[in-house]
């Protein structure tokens, strides 16, 4: 058992590294995209708000694997040159879209949690909607957005396991490869995989808890 542990550890570590890379890039791009979507929804901008609402529902209601399939296989089939995606970019794009639905909800809840009285006061002294957002609402809202991001980050980290379908050797896939070579040690290998996820995710959750205690929580609604 020990030899299998020692033999597979480097491959699992490499898989963890790949998972890490994907999750970091995704959290950044997913947050940016989600911020835009959430902002549009919170400000109830006419047509766009509805479109984004539909986008969130469709992405939430269908399996991520199908989104990945769409981005990696269907988009390139249209023949458009800039849609010819390699595995890693396709995985990041699909995962970012999925992430953005969560982030959008957090952003919207945070913005709506800021006391509307502040907005009223700002508008009454002559600030435009944009100025209100920029100087009054967002600074307060952004603080509230931080604690839930920990939970979202963990969801992303574990969601990366699906990108193995398009051949990315992330952590779970690395575990599957190792299990193919050492089938009788399947439980050990998957146990190691679980441990590595724990080592990555638990600190993130603790950090989020700490941030929540410092900043306070919002209610994610809608």
């Amino acid at each position, binding site marked *: 058992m020990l030899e299998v542990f020692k*033999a597979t550890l*480097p*491959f699992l570590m490499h898989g963890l590294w790949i998972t890490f890379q994907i999750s970091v890039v995704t959290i950044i791009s997913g947050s940016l995209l989600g911020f835009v979507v959430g902002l549009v929804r919170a400000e109830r901008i006419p047509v766009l708000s*509805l*479109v984004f*609402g*539909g*986008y969130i*529902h*469709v992405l939430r209601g269908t399996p991520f*694997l199908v989104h990945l*399939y*769409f981005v*990696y*296989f*269907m*988009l*390139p*089939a*249209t*023949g458009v040159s800039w849609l010819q995606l390699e595995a890693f970019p396709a995985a990041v794009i699909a995962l970012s879209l999925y992430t953005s639905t969560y982030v959008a909800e957090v952003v919207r809840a945070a913005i709506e949690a800021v006391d509307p009285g502040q907005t009223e006061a700002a508008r009454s002294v002559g600030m435009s909607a944009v100025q209100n957002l920029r100087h009054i609402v967002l600074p307060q809202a952004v603080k509230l957005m931080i604690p839930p991001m920990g939970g979202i980050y963990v969801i992303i980290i574990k969601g990366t396991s699906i990108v*193995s*379908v*398009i*051949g990315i*050797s992330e952590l779970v896939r690395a575990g*599957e*490869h*190792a*299990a*193919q*070579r*050492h*089938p*009788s040690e*399947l*439980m050990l290998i998957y146990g190691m995989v679980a441990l590595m996820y724990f080592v990555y995710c638990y600190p993130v959750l603790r950090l989020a808890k700490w941030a929540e205690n410092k900043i306070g929580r919002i209610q994610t609604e809608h």
Partner: protein
Amino acid sequence: MKRFKRLLALSTGILSLALMGLPQAGADVVEDIVKRGELRVAVQTQGPPVSFIDKNGKRTGFAMEVIEMMAKDMGVKLKVLDYDWKGLIPAVRSGKADFLAADMTPNAKRTLVLSFTAPYLYSDVVLYAKKGMGFKSWQDVCKSGKTVAVVQGSSNVGLLKAKCSAAQIKEFAGGGPAVAQAVAADRADAGINDQASAAGYVIEYPDFQVLDGALKSWPLSFATRADETHLLRWLDNYFMLIRNDGRLDKLADYWMRGPEWKKDH
């Protein structure tokens, strides 16, 4: 509710338009391969002995060695695209890969969609089970009250339904090792897989045995997009050549007909 319905219709409409994208209309892909100097092959890392990652982290297996030979004899570089079973077909249909190098069985319905080479090998399908269960041949398991575990989505599912219908059939995601794990944990009475994989599991799990008799001998082939006739002929020709000079048999004996490969990989 109306809003949601309208939204749904809109999104589906956009989605459908996007989906109308046709796969790459083909000039001859063999010309493309020569032009770019690179052969792109989709493989499914489903496990030893066909295609897997060995204990040193190197990608190897019967299919791997065959395509490495192919690329060398073509005079081009080899780019291996690794996919899960679900991603294999779209990979070759969308043009991401030139062809697919796996142990797929070219049945009648499948050949409606892709073109398959003539079989490079025939592989026996066997059942394996724990010793001491009182099973001798595979028919002993195909009785009511017994369970047979099979890889999810495998051709063997249909085979079991045809030849072993009295037993309960359980499909397991996670490939061959998941099926072996199920048998080892007494969650199934027997597992079904090709002979080479079964021989491997018997070594890994000393209390396993391969049951007598083969349910079927599946032909195994590589596959190309339906209209790539030149590439298909090239592949068939290549198999003929390496069968003729003995290289195919050498590879098959090492990888598919016994557990020799376990020592080095």
